[in-house]
């Protein structure tokens, strides 16, 4: 159990004061720029709960996680990846653009997958913050379960691990349903270089 969750009353007062000082700092230190407006400095309950150096208690984490699971929109026509284009998926996986104060919000965002994951085994430049996804479907298969899980993970990773480092691509409108389908094809299509 972590102290911030069950802090004794006496400590609460000083914690609240410190929080006020912190909020003051955040409010005075940033300014809006382009699409990066000040409301981006506000936290939702997941962000708030996951902003501590230590893990939260399991019950709280589980409650938050389930709420995130409710946010996932499954593909409207049941098409998880067959209708997707792995070549488009590659472009989305490769591009890290979007959502910064410099980006035009009218231009589609990238998924930035390579920033954190290995995908195409031939691509040397990949990050290691996330798990390595090289040979994704070749290794994991294409069962309904794994396909559905993968969609959910891309749409809202917090539904599986509430403090996941991965952005909530669908939930936060980073990627459209169509874009997610392309990325899914990149992971599942036997012709995709990911599975070569």
């Amino acid at each position: 159990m972590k102290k911030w969750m069950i802090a004794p009353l006496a400590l609460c007062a000083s914690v609240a004061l410190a929080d006020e000082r912190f909020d003051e700092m955040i409010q005075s230190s940033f300014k809006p720029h382009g699409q990066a407006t000040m409301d981006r400095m506000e936290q939702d309950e997941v962000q708030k709960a996951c902003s501590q150096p230590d893990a939260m208690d399991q019950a709280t984490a589980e409650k938050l996680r389930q709420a995130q699971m409710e946010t996932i929109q499954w593909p409207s026509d049941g098409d998880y990846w067959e209708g997707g284009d792995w070549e488009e998926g590659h472009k989305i996986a490769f591009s890290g653009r979007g959502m910064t104060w410099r980006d035009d919000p009218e231009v589609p965002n990238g998924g930035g997958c390579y920033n954190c994951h290995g995908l195409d085994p031939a691509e040397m430049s990949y990050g290691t913050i996330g798990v390595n996804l090289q040979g994704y479907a070749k290794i994991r298969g294409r069962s309904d379960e794994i396909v559905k899980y993968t969609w959910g993970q891309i749409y809202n990773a917090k539904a599986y691990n509430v403090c996941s480092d991965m952005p909530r691509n669908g939930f936060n409108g980073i990627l459209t349903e169509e874009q997610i389908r392309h990325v899914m094809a990149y992971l599942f299509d036997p012709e995709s270089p990911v599975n070569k």
Partner: protein
Amino acid sequence: MNPQRRDALKTGGGLGIFGMLVAAGVITPGAALARDAKLFEADTMAGVFEALGIERPELNDSVTLIAPDIAENGAVVPVGVTTDLPNVEVVSILVEENPNKLAANFNLPEGTLAEVQTRIKMRQTSDVYALVKADGKYYMNKKEIKVTLGGCGG
């Protein structure tokens, strides 16, 4: 103590050192002022050799190209050339996959060692060539340098 002279000749107007050197007959106007543009504009390796009026030299281990195996960023790739060949007159650095192949020509007067370094830009992974003219003959060696993509593209 600072050995660098900050108040050194800042070539305001005038001829600067090039003009002075030419005037003093130290270097010919051709050498100092008219770089061989055709050589630098060559957009194929063959074009470079043609501009030099030579056949493509065979690869030769008497020339060493010192460079990293991988350049994390193609904007700055350290390259050096050394050779034990006597009477080296010119050391050239060429990049096969760049739009213009020739990066630099080092003209070495007598007394200057055939041991130079610089930093070049590389558009992509490529063979990089060191071409040496010694005693009127050309010698060449190469090394492949991989250029990785970097950053997040954010």
